[in-house]
């Protein structure tokens, strides 16, 4: 049977749902990452499919289980948001045929299916549950958490992978046509750069609260610093360059007031986790990190781009859902790893959380304080997409590693890592996970 996209009933979209019924009964144990690259070099062994297999195998090994113990697979089938296979470019069939292919030649090249992965991972002999999460690892994590809690799987791999091709991001695929059906034409075909909507919200934010773009600099330098301590990340692996306040402030505008570094760098990578029940996790190789809650935002803006008012209302609502289902308050958070790939909505996320008591309009002032991993108020210790490239995965890997005490040079030292939250992507439309070092 073909793998299905997770039904809406698996997500916790609403307030008033109470404590998550599986709170503390699901755990992340294993982490696996592929290498990173700026773009695909056309070789089979560096294809998004090959790197996905590598990441999955590393997650299995990291957890210390045998492949035949795995009975579930939740993946995100889409592997790009802006590097679509050019319609006039032949698919390299020698690469396609070097794997156990499916009926779609782009499987493993510019997209993924559970069928393709299972065809090429013969050691996964007992997978009887597969499901797709939409868009992001954040989404797939919610699906896997709920699936394990509901008893649909007990040892589940979760995967998100990214390919990147030659050419400019967001310029290929449907965007290369003269026409696109529906409102997408207004945004993707004739509209401004992808960061435009966030830039517009940020401009209004600065006007409303009397802030400036330069006030983002400490957040940017801190995020890159953290990323350079993330050995799995792109910048650490390929371009170990700091990002100074001067670098940031002089960068060219992409959609003013969003500049070059307010946009993440598209890369190739695959990240995978092994999730299981709290009981089974006790016998595995790594320290379990328990899931206290998952929450989602499925809000739709009234128009093409959400207004600042809509953003603030929704991030506040998301914060309430996160805390309600986990049975915690903002004061319980050791750190936050909310999404940053556009940088200018990170402050919306953390203001919605009320992280360290900050209110709307206060995050940029908060950035001027000690937000480092050594301080009492760590902001994005993963470094996010700014620190390691466009993946939407680092935030989760870091949360798990921090709570397991194996974040290496990136390990937070100013706080005891006990409870964390990660997720995204957008203020309107995202998925979030609350992680804990203990099940209760």
């Amino acid at each position, binding site marked *: 049977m073909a793998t299905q996209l997770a039904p809406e009933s698996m997500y916790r979209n609403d307030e008033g749902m109470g404590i998550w019924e599986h709170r503390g009964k699901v755990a992340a144990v294993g982490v696996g990452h592929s290498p990173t690259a700026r773009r695909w070099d056309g070789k089979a062994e560096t294809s998004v499919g090959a790197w996905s297999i590598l990441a999955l195998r590393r997650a299995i090994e990291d957890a210390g289980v045998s492949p035949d113990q795995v009975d579930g697979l939740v993946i995100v089938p889409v592997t790009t948001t802006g590097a679509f296979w050019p319609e006039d470019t032949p698919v390299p069939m020698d690469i396609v045929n070097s794997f156990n292919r499916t009926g779609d030649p782009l499987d493993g090249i510019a997209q993924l299916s559970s069928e393709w992965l299972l065809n090429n991972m013969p050691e996964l002999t007992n997978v009887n549950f597969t499901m797709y999460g939409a868009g992001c690892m954040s989404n797939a994590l919610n699906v896997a958490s709920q699936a394990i809690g509901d008893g649909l799987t007990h040892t589940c791999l979760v995967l998100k992978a990214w390919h990147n091709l030659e050419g400019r991001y967001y310029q290929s695929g449907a965007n290369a046509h003269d026409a696109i059906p529906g409102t997408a034409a207004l945004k993707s075909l004739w509209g401004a750069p992808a960061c435009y909507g966030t830039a517009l919200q940020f401009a209004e934010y600065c006007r409303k609260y009397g802030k400036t773009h330069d006030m983002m600099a400490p957040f940017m330098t801190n995020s890159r610093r953290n990323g350079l301590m993330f050995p799995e990340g792109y910048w650490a692996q390929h371009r170990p*360059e*700091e990002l100074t306040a001067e*670098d940031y402030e002089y*960068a060219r*505008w992409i959609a003013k007031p969003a500049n070059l570094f307010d946009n993440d760098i598209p890369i190739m990578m695959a990240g995978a986790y092994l999730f299981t029940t709290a009981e089974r996790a006790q016998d595995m190789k790594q320290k379990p990190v328990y899931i206290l809650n998952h929450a989602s935002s499925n809000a739709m803006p009234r128009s093409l781009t959400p207004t600042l008012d809509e953003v603030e209302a929704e991030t506040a609502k998301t914060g309430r859902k996160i805390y309600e289902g986990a049975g915690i308050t903002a004061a319980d958070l050791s750190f936050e790893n909310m999404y940053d790939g556009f940088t200018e909505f990170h402050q919306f996320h953390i203001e919605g959380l009320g992280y360290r008591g900050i209110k709307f309009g206060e995050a940029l002032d908060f950035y001027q304080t000690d937000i480092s991993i050594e301080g009492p108020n760590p902001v994005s210790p993963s470094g996010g997409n700014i620190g390691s490239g466009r993946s939407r995965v680092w935030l989760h890997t870091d949360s798990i590693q921090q709570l397991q005490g194996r974040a290496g040079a990136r390990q937070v030292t100013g706080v005891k890592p006990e409870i964390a939250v990660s997720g995204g992507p957008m203020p309107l439309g995202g998925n979030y996970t609350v992680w804990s070092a203990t099940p209760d």
Partner: protein
Amino acid sequence: MDMVRMVVGDGFLIGSCSDRPMSAQRAIWEAHDIPYDFVIPKHMLADVKAKFEADRYFHVGDREDLDKKYALEAGFEFLWPDEAAAMPWFATKDSSDA
């Protein structure tokens, strides 16, 4: 870098103009032990022309939409890498070094 080294000390003002952070540009020059006169973000090339007086201004780049566009807007002459390599100051030095 080898091309740049060939003209160091011959009256050329040398620098880089890139989307790479200025700190990273400086680090690259310093890692190669090449003295440089400026580093600048891509869109600020005009500032170089304003700051330094020279007979001619060239920008070597590999992007039509970004390098060439900004270079011409800033009043620089634009050279693709292969065109730059064929310029006489490189060719003459190359043959004399051979």
